[in-house]
Each structure stands twice: as C-alpha cells, then as structure tokens.
C-alpha cells in the first residue's frame, strides 16, 4: 500500500471468514481507510491482491470486477449520500440500476431498509435535512440495498454520541445475525471493537505493517506486542511507569 513512493503499509496478509465481523484497527494515519479502499476496489494496491472466494479482484477483468463489486456494500465515514437525492432515492438508486424490480417493490424494499436503520418515515428527506447520525445510518441502508454478501463500514462510530454509536454497533451485530453477511469494520473505537469484533487485524503506523491478528480480547490479554496491548487497554498497562 503506497501513495507514490511513500509506503503506508507493507506485507499485509490476512483472511476474513464468511459471516464474521472483522475489524481493521490501528492508530490515526496507520492506513486503515486506505486498506479499506483497496479491499472495496476503489484504489489498486501498489503490490499484491485482494481475493474474494478464491477470485482475485485486482487481477480480474473489468466485468468480473463489476460483478464482485455488486456483492459488496460500503458505508462511508460521513454517509456520502448524494445530496441532490432524497434518502429514498439514495437507497433506491442501486436497486433501480442493477435490478429489474418494479417501482412499487423498490419502494417497499427502500422503506424496509430505512426502517431497519431506524429511519422509517424519512424517505422524502434530503441529506441536508437530517442529522449526522441519521446520515450515517442512511448510508448503511444504502450499503444494504442490494443485500450484499460483505458489508464494509468506515469508522461507523466516528462523530456519534455514545448511544448512537452503541446502536450502530447493535445494528451491525443484528444485521450479521439475521442476514448472515460478512462485516468488515474499520475503527479505532475500543468499546466498539470489543463489542462487535470476532477477529481483527492491527495496523501499526510506525513499523508500517500488521503487527497482530486475532480476536481483540485475546490480543488485549495475550499479545506479545506491547503496542497492541497498550492500544487495546487505552494506553494503560504500559511496562514500567513513572518512578519518583
């Protein structure tokens, strides 16, 4: 992973199992969002590949990539809703573009998706008329529009109050349980990490590579790497300490 000749992360190798909630964690500037961009097909990695069910993404033809993209849903950091469309139109656009469902059925599915994220009745609102937390949830509804196999979340709890952030975590857990979808979540929110993650990878900004991989609780208690332990304990439990 690099921007020009500046390498952000190297030697990343991990796999996400079907149906699990996988967290990409790390400090600010460690390249979490860049890694997500590589995984969802926005930006080709400088070297290496992303593989879905044994099918290479970056080695595939443009058509095959389109097919793979259709199986992914991405929820962006601040919603990234199209500002000229209502929430219903935002969620409905992928359905209108990629399915041949009748307009009535699209409306029903859109209402369902908005209801799932707690936004029933907000169909006709424009993104500029709702709050930041609602934008984020509407973004999740849009990501789910096509019933994707894998849902990606970029910093779902960033900028949300603790209750909304907790609700979003519950939403992720509930969606996994009911849809059986795989979730990949980029976050550095500890509370979130411990609540939702089955498995995680830790990106380190200093060594510029992944320095740990596994269930976060286990990493917190057992990781041999002090950076990982410190991160997962919120800076407490560093070796040594201040002696007077």
């Amino acid at each position, binding site marked *: 992973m690099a921007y020009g000749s500046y390498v952000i992360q190297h030697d990343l190798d991990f796999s996400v199992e079907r149906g699990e909630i996988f967290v990409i964690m790390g400090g600010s500037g460690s390249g979490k969002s860049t890694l997500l961009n590589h995984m969802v097909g926005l930006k080709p990695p400088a070297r290496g590949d992303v593989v879905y069910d044994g099918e290479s993404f970056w080695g595939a033809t443009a058509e095959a990539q389109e097919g793979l993209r259709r199986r992914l849903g991405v929820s962006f950091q601040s919603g990234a809703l199209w500002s000229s469309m209502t929430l219903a139109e935002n969620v409905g656009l992928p359905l209108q573009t990629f399915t041949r469902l009748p307009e009535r059925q699209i409306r029903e599915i859109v209402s369902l998706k908005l209801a799932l994220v*707690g936004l*029933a009745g*907000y169909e006709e*609102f424009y993104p500029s008329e709702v709050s930041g937390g609602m934008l984020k949830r509407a973004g999740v509804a849009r990501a789910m529009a096509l*019933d994707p196999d894998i849902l990606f979340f970029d910093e779902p709890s960033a900028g949300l109050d603790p209750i909304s952030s907790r609700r979003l975590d519950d939403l992720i857990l509930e969606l996994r*349980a009911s849809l059986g979808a795989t979730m990949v979540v980029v976050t550095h929110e500890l509370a979130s990490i411990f609540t939702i993650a089955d498995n995680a990878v830790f990106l380190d900004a200093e060594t510029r590579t992944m320095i740990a991989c596994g269930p976060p609780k286990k990493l917190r208690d057992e990781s041999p790497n002090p950076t990982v332990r410190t991160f997962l304990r919120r800076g407490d439990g560093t070796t040594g300490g201040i002696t007077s």
Partner: protein
Amino acid sequence: MNGATVSVLDATLAVRHPEPDGAVLELAGHWLSQRGLPEPSDALGELQAARVNHVAFDARQVAAWDSGLVTFVLKVLSEMAARGVAADRAGLPDGVRRLIAMAEAVPERQTGRTDLRPPWLARIGTRAIAASRGVAVGFAFLGEALLAFGALVRRHARFRVSDLLVVIQDCGPRALGIVSLISFLIGLILAFVGAVQLQQFGASIFVANLVAIAMTREIGCIMTAIVMSGRTGAAFAAQLGTMNTNQEIDALSTMGISPMEFLVLPRMLALIAMMPLLTVYSDLVGILGGAVVGLGMLGLSPTEYFEQTRAAVHVSDFLIGIAKSSVFGVVVALAGCLRGMQSGRSAAAVGLAATSAVVTSIVWLIVLDGIFAVILNVLGF
C-alpha cells in the same frame, strides 16, 4: 385441504386451513426478489374471504431468501394488524423474524410531509417575498462589502496578502489565454461583418473605425466581464460555497475574523485591479483581430490601418471602457462572493451557487452597461 396456489418461478405461496378460523401461509422455494415473488394480494383476498382470526407462517420449505421475503411478510403482517387478525411469526426463518423486529423497533415518524402544492396565489406571494428578501440580502452584502473597504482604508482589514496575490494571479495572468482568444475572434468577426457592408460603399477603410470604437467603448469590457464571470465569478462561488459546506467560514467567524474582510475583500480587490488591465489588453487584441481582416481581406496596408485606427479612437474611448470594466469587476466579484457565501451546505447547493453567480453577474452587467450608455449619451461622450 382447500387452498389457492400462486406460483411465480421458484418462490411459491399456498394458503392452508388446518382449522376453520385459522390459516397457515406456506412459503417454499427461493424467495429472491430478483427472480420474481408471489403477489400477497391473492392470499390476502383469500384470507379475507375465509374470515380467519389467526394466521401462522410455515417457511420450512424456503430454500433461500432476501429483502423480498421480508417486505412480503411485512405487508401481510400490516394487513393482518389492520384487520385485527392475530399473526403468529414463529414459523418464519429466524433471520426474517429478527429483521422484522428491527424494522418495527423504531416506529415510523410522522413527518407531516405532504406533496400538496399550495394554491397559486400563495405561490406567487411566497415567490414575491423570497425575491424581495433576495434583493435585501444583496444590498446587505453590498453594505458589508463597503464596510470591509472602509476597514481596508483605515488599514485594519484582516486578510493575507499572499491570498490576494494568489487571487490576482488567478484572475489576471491566468485569464490572458481565454481573453486573447475571445477578443481576437470578436475583433475578427466584427471586422468581417463590417467589411462586407462597407465594401458596398467603397468605404472599407472605415472597418478600422468600426472595430476600434466598438472594442474600446463596448465590446472589450463587456466580453472580458462575461468571460471573467464564467471563469472567475463561478470559481469564487464554488470555492466559498465549499468552504461554507466544510464550516471553514464558521471557523473564521468564531475566531473573530470577518469572512467579508478575509475572503471577499481580496477577491474584489483582485478583480477590480485586474479587470481594467484585461480590458485594455482585450481592446488591443480585438483591434489586432480586425487588422487581420483589414490587411488580409481588404488589402489595406498596415500603416494605413494603424493611422485610421489612431484617428478614430480617442483616449476617452479607452477611459470609458476602463471605467466600465472597474464597475463590472465589482459586479462579477460581488455576485460570485454573494452566491458563494449564501450557498447551502451540499454538493448540489454549491453547483446552484456557481450557476446563480454567473446568471446574476451577467444580468447586472448588461443592465449596468445600458445605464452607462444612457449616462454617457446625456453627458455627451
């Protein structure tokens, strides 16, 4: 067993009546919305005819499902609830039950939105009020801009000189290319159209007068202003609109830095300074364009054409163009900055602001040019 079966592709729906007042909806197959799903209306009709008072689901035969099944069940449930029929969800797939519970967890918000258009009189009234407010806002903005100029004169306006230089660079030297192209072609076209007419009277030499006077008094400044409004005024609006979206303007205000002084003033100063220079340049390039026709098509000699031009235009013609262009500079900068500062906080609103900046400035340019023409006529220039 009496029942009705609706079958579309793989997904099937059957209504079974194990007891007289109860019914079971049997679902089977692949319930994927892409492959087409049974319509609930038939089953609902049958349930109504049978006057059942409780329904249950049996989805053991459902091989796969997606949102289509969930919307289907939701529709049946809401219909049952409306009729006061008890519905037992136990037979539904676990995931569907959980999704329905989630969808019902937050009740639909009654937002009171209606599509009803207000009556035409109310619409006219609303528009009139909005228009008068728009005019008031425009004047308020003009006033604030004047106050910012006042602060500049008293030397306590806060802005960065480097910002001013960047704007000057952008709306001065960087605009030379497009201004050259437009002015040269306009001069050429004017001369060509004039030549065709004047040749009939054997007065071809007067093409030089036509081009020189038209360029210096009118076309040089108005064309430059229109180019600048499309090129720079729109850019100002988009830039300030995006800054507004990112709360950059709020950040300035909370620090006690006036956005008028910090953002609008340098832009106005730059355009007011650059517009006259661009206009003089445009006049000269336009005259050059006319000369190309004069020399190439009419066979005039360079000296002849130059002398004719010099005799035709006076310094006052240039000065009129320059004076107008300063005013036009203010108009373009004001319209761009006003629309940018007023812009809403979304991508669509920024686009609208850029459009509106260009429309506003072009309207005012033409109106002011007309007013100038009347005043100059009265004054005898």
